[in-house]
C-alpha cells in the first residue's frame, strides 16, 4: 500500500479511538441496564437518536452547546424513567424475551415520533463554534471536536465509575446486579433502583447521541445501525461488565478504523466477524463472568 507511514497509522488509531468513544458510551448504558435489570434494551439506538435530535434542536434554539449537553441526557433519562415504569416493569419475571421485544416495538414508535416532530430529512448538525477546525497533534492535523469527544467520554466514564465504585448508590446497584432478593430483604426499594438505572442508561444513550451529532447526519434512521454495533461491543466486552463495555467499545472502534485503512469495504463486516469469533472462543466476552452464558 502506497504511503503507509507511521503517521498515517497513528492518525488512523486516533480516529478509531474517537469512533470507539461513542461505542463505549453506548455500550456502557446498555450494560448498566442489562447488568441490573437483565433487560436487553432494543430501543437503545432510538434513545441515541432522540438524544442527537434534542441536542441539535436545543443547540439551534439556545446557541449554547454546554446547556444542550446537560439538558439532553436529562430529557432522555426522563423518557427512560417513563419507559421503565409503565412499559418494562409489567414484564419482569416473564422471561428474558418480553422486555426485549417491547423495547423493539418502542424503537419503531420513537423513530416515527422524531419524524413527526422534526421532519423526515433530519436536522443539519453543527459543530459548536469553539470546537471547530483541526489542531496539530504532532503527527498531523486532527479535528478538534473529536479530541473533545475522546476527552468528554473519558470524563463521563470516570464519573460513572466513581458513581458505581465510590458511592452508596453504586453499591446498591452492584449488589442488586448480584442478588436482587437479598437487596430487597435488606430494605432497599429495588423497584426504585431499577427505575433509576434504566433512566441512567437511557440518559447515557442520549448523551452519546448529542456528542455524536456533529460527526454525522442527524436523521430518524441513525439509531438502527448503531444498535447492531452496540450489541457487538456489549457482547465482545461481556454483557454485564462496565469495564468490558468501555474496553470493547474502543477496541471495536479501532478495529473498524484499521480495517478501513486496508480493506475499506470489509470494515463493517469485520466487527461482526470479531463478535462471532469472540462468542465462539470465549462466549462470556472479554470481561464477562464465565458460566454466565454458554
Amino acid at each position: 500500500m502506497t504511503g503507509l507511514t507511521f503517521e498515517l497509522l497513528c492518525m488512523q488509531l486516533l480516529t478509531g479511538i474517537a469512533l470507539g468513544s461513542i461505542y463505549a458510551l453506548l455500550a456502557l448504558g446498555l450494560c448498566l441496564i442489562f447488568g441490573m435489570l437483565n433487560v436487553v434494551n432494543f430501543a437503545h439506538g432510538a434513545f441515541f437518536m432522540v438524544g442527537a435530535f434534542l441536542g441539535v434542536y436545543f443547540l439551534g434554539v439556545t446557541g449554547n452547546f454546554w446547556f444542550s449537553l446537560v439538558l439532553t441526557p436529562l430529557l432522555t433519562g426522563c423518557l427512560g424513567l417513563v419507559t421503565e415504569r409503565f412499559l418494562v416493569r409489567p414484564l419482569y419475571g416473564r422471561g428474558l424475551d418480553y422486555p426485549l421485544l417491547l423495547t423493539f416495538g418502542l424503537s419503531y414508535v420513537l423513530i416515527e415520533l422524531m419524524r413527526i416532530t422534526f421532519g423526515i430529512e433530519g436536522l443539519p448538525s453543527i459543530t459548536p463554534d469553539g470546537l471547530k477546525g483541526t489542531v496539530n497533534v504532532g503527527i498531523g492535523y486532527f479535528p478538534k471536536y473529536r479530541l473533545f469527544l475522546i476527552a468528554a467520554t473519558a470524563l463521563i466514564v470516570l464519573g460513572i465509575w466513581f458513581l458505581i465504585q465510590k458511592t452508596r448508590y453504586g453499591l446498591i446497584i452492584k449488589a442488586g446486579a448480584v442478588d436482587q432478593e437479598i437487596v430487597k430483604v435488606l430494605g432497599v426499594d429495588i423497584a426504585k433502583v431499577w427505575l433509576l438505572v434504566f433512566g441512567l442508561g437511557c440518559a447515557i444513550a442520549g448523551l452519546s447521541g448529542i456528542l455524536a451529532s456533529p460527526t454525522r447526519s442527524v436523521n430518524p434512521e441513525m439509531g438502527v445501525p448503531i444498535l447492531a454495533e452496540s450489541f457487538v461491543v456489549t457482547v465482545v466486552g461481556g454483557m454485564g461488565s462496565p469495564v468490558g463495555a468501555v474496553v470493547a467499545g474502543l477496541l471495536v472502534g479501532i478495529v473498524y478504523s484499521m480495517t478501513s485503512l486496508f480493506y475499506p469495504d470489509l470494515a463493517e463486516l469485520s466487527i461482526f466477524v470479531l463478535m462471532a469469533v469472540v462468542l465462539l472462543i470465549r462466549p462470556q466476552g472479554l470481561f464477562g463472568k464465565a458460566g454466565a452464558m454458554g
Partner: protein
Amino acid sequence: MKQKLTNQTRRKMLIGGAAVASTPLWLNVANAKSETIKIGFPVPLTGPFSAEAQDQVKAAELAIKEFNDAGGFNGRKAELLVRDDKLNPGEAATRTLELIEKDKVNYVVGSLSAATQLSINAVCKERKILFNSISQSDAINEVKDWSIYTFHEALNPTMTAGALARYSIPRFGKKIVFLTADYAYGHEMVRAFERVGKEMGATTLADIRHPLGASDYSAFMPRIKALNPDILVLCNFGRDLLNAAKQCTDFGLKSSMKIVTPVLLYTARLAGGPEAFEGIIGGTSYYWGLEDRIPAAKTFNDAFRKMYNGSVPSDYGALGYAGVKSVLASVKIAKSTETMKVVSAMENLKYDWYKGPEYYRKCDHQAVQTVIIVESKSKNMKDKYDVFNILTIEPTTEIHMRTCAELGHKA
C-alpha cells in the same frame, strides 16, 4: 423545508385506503375498468429519501393537473396512484403488483433508487406495462434488464460523472481519489468518471470503498489526506454524501484538494447546510436557478410556485414532473392508451418540459438531455433556496453516452 402531500393526494389516498379496507377481492374484480387514465407512482414516501419522494409526488401531481386542465385525452382525465415503496425493492415489487393487478394502472412512473427501479422494471416488463423510471442507474439501460416497455427519464451515472470529469479535471488537476459507496451505483459513478479521466490523462490514486449507509467516514480521512490528490470525488448519494461532505470539512480536507460529486443532491444540500457543502462542485439534472436562462424552467417553476405556496421544485422533483408529462403527452400523440402505441409515440417524442430540448434514444429509451454542473455556495444567498451557482450546462447530445453496442443492444 416542510413537505406536505397535497389535499388531492391525501384525499385520494384516504379514498384508496377506505376501498382497500372495505372491499374484498371479489368486489374489486367487478370494478376493473374505469374511465380515468391511471398512472401508478411507487416512490419511497418513508425512509431516508422521503423528502425527495414527496417532492416527486408534488411535481407529478402538477403534470397531472396540467393534463386534466387542458382537457385530458378525449375527455378522459389522468389520475396518479401514489404508493410507498419504503425504498425497499421487495416492497416496490409488491406495490407494483398491487398497482397492476388490483388498480389496473395503464402505466407506471416512479422509483428513487437503483435497486427499486430495477425491481419495478422487472415486474412491469413481464406484464407488458410501460415503466418510465425517474431515478439514476446505468444498469437499466443495459440489455439484461431493459425491455421495450422500459423508459429512463433520469440521467445515468455515465452522463453525470462524465460531465463532472470533463469540467473538473482541466481546472483542478489530474490526481484523483474516489471515496465510493460500495454498491453498484457507486461503482458506476467511478467507472464513468474514470472513463473520461483516462482520455484526459488523469490517474486514479485510490478508489476507497465505504459501506453503503455508513455514518462515520472519519476512518477514511487520514488516508485520503496522506494520498494528497488534486480532486476528491465523492461517489455516493443522499445521506451518505451529506455525511461524507461534513466529515471532509471537519478534517480540513478542503484546504488541500477540490471536492466534487457526480450527483449534488439539492435536498441533501438543504439538509446539510452551507458549511458542509461550501465549495463542493457537482452534477445535477435540474436546478431551479436555471429559470434565468431557460424559458421552460421559468414556466415550470412558476406553475410549481403557484400550486405549492411559493416553494421551488428540486432536481428529483422535476423528474417526477417530466416522467409523467412525457407519458401523457405520448398518449395524446398516439391518440390511444394502448401500450405499444404509446411506446411508439414516446420513442419519437421531442420535448422541452422544463430544462431544454430532450428526446428518447431509440435503442435504450434513455432520455437524452442537458447536464448541469453547479457549485454549492454559502455567501450571497438571496434566500434559503439559493444554494448553487451554475457553472456550466452540457448540451443535449448522445456523444458522451455509452453507445448502444456497449450496452448490448443490437444496432
